């Protein structure tokens, strides 16, 4: 069974059709890159999959582990194993990153009928992941995403992803706002999570990120649908030629 199966998806925001018949299948163990020009609906897709309110599915369906997720709230999708790494991670004043992480982990455990995580066990897991991502204690004591640099925000997203161990990860423009060093750290973090059980959808405008997170498949997304699919070489082709031909083709 595919990990995620998107069938002829149509979605609208404020009554405006943004996704117009998108079909995509991702199996466990695969990394798919979705590339497209600005305004193609890339972020809309990530919000639709994550279950954000106001993003209305007007046709088609999304199956996660064979289950239609249409009726699942955002938090239910999250605890079921869908994770969205935000393009612009949100600041939450006064809530320490550790507190937030623990709340998220406990929410997931509760959904799976498990008790709350032991404080020592939590700390041990956290320390290990912090080390991998080069995140100092001082940073996670700060409120969620407050005063973080662009790179720190994306590293914190990678930390959350690593701690929550989702089965399907969406990286929404993770490369935006990152310098090359930060890009490398975050990519390494993602690559460590690449396992046979986990699938990724990497949404990006630029090919650059894909030098570090090498995809199994690349899809060109324009005007609300996938207009071309291929291997990783497709990304290089796009880098060279740009999106112009696809935008015209789709329109």
């Amino acid at each position: 069974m595919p990990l995620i199966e998107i069938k002829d998806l149509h979605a609208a925001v404020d009554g405006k059709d943004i996704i117009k018949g998108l079909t995509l299948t991702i199996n466990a163990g695969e990394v798919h890159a979705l590339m497209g020009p600005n305004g193609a609906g890339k972020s809309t897709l990530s919000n639709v999959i994550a279950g954000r309110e106001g993003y209305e599915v007007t046709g088609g369906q999304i199956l996660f582990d064979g289950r239609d997720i249409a009726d699942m709230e955002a938090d239910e999708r999250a605890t079921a194993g869908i994770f969205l790494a935000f393009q612009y991670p949100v600041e939450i004043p006064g809530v320490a990153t550790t507190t937030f992480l623990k709340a998220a982990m406990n929410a997931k455990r509760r959904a799976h009928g498990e008790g709350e995580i032991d404080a020592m066990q939590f700390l041990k897991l956290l320390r290990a992941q912090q080390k991998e991502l080069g995140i100092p204690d001082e940073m996670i004591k700060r409120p969620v995403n407050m005063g973080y640099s662009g790179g720190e925000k994306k590293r914190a997203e990678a930390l959350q992803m690593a701690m929550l161990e989702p089965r399907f990860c969406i990286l929404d423009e993770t490369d935006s706002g990152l310098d090359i060093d930060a890009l490398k750290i975050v990519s390494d973090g993602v690559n460590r999570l690449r396992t046979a059980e986990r699938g990724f959808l990497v949404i990006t405008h630029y090919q650059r990120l894909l030098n570090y997170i090498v995809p199994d498949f690349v899809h060109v997304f324009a005007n609300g649908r996938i207009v071309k699919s291929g291997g990783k070489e497709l990304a290089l082709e796009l880098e060279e030629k740009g999106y112009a031909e696809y935008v015209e083709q789709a329109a």
Partner: protein
Amino acid sequence: MAATENTVQTVRDMERYKYGFETDIEVETAPKGLNEDIIRFISAKKEEPEWLLEWRLKAYRLWLTMDEPKWQKVHYPPIDYQDAYYYAAPKTKAGPKSLDEVDPKLLETYEKLGIPIKEQEILAGVESANVAVDAVFDSVSVATTYRKKLEEKGIIFCAISEAVRNHPDLVKKYLGSVVPPSDNYFACLNSAVFTDGSFVYIPKGVRCPMELSTYFRINQKNTGQFERTLIVADDDTYVSYLEGCTAPQRDENQLHAAVVELVALDNAEIKYSTVQNWYPGDENGKGGVYNFVTKRAACRGKNSKVMWTQVETGSAITWKYPSCILQGEGSVGEFYSVAITNNCQQADTGTKMIHIGRNTRSKIVSKGISAGRADQTYRGLVRILGGAEGARNFTQCDSLLIGDQCGAHTVPYIESKNPSAKLEHEATTSRISEDQLFYCRSRGLNPEEAVGLIVNGFCKEVLQTLPMEFAVEAQKLVNISLEGSVG
């Protein structure tokens, strides 16, 4: 369901009042209404000396000439002061000598209220516990515990009526010295009819070894609560006092007009923390407590310090401005407040910092959260008098709105008569954003947890000033489902 509706519903559920029960205990009440005979009845019941009866009567006569204040931004039907009882006491033989004599129903009530185990232990007589509770049940203290340990230090912690009998000189010297009867309408009424409250005296050089704690509880239909609390911290002392309130659900509005007076002498420090959770009325604004409270501290001594922390979640109407008169040179006043109003609750609350002495400092941090159709006003006064050379104030007022039918207002009054004073005022108004909610939910938090987490984050600066015993309770009040999510 739209996210906003969701949020509003969440807050509504979160805030639905848990403590809706009523304990049936025989009470000996004074007849309904208010007149000089009632005041004589109260005074006689309390076996008060003549001077106090005169003090009460004088206040009463003054009160008759006063008008209810109208400047606050709250609306309520006229209060019929003749339609209330001014004295209700649990019926006891001669005042309980031990906890065995306390009506088991009272203890049961404490249990229902979820009074922390520690306090329950004290009520049960366990000697190793570390918080002293002067439990106020309706108008009379039924159990004053831990007195022995405090007595060893020379600390007096008792019901105010007891202090009148046993420490008349101290009471006479300080009662009304911070909030005189003429101060305002409600304080004046309180002066005439107060029936209980606590008295604390910390003798010179003593650091109070434990948090002093009082649970107030209204438990008699139509009985106004008129507590009077007086805390005197002599030179070189420290005391932390906790006041927590919950009240049983009922339909009639209940008038609550307390007075709290704090006196800090040289190098004395008083920390006064309140968690107020009186019955706020139902979703449609029916019932609920009218809470008209006058709280004021006089920092009389050099380098004295008073810190007010309040978490106000209850009452239909809150009218409350814990204040500091910074008279002693180098004295410090601090005010930390979280006020949550929901449904039809109305709150007009804030503080007054009056800088009289040189190099006096004050800090105000106010966090208001408004939801439902509630309306909330921060009203704060910072006054620098001519002699307050080098005075400093920092004020921060933040309001958080949940839903689109509530209101938040900030009314700062700033008066400076000394050019060397430095004053800062910051104010913000914000909403819980859809972005924040979605971010939390995309990490698996349900709407209730998400709102609770965000609101607790918003209040953090204030909540962290509470003593541990209260911080936990306060966080639960902000969101009962937060348990386990706070690392």
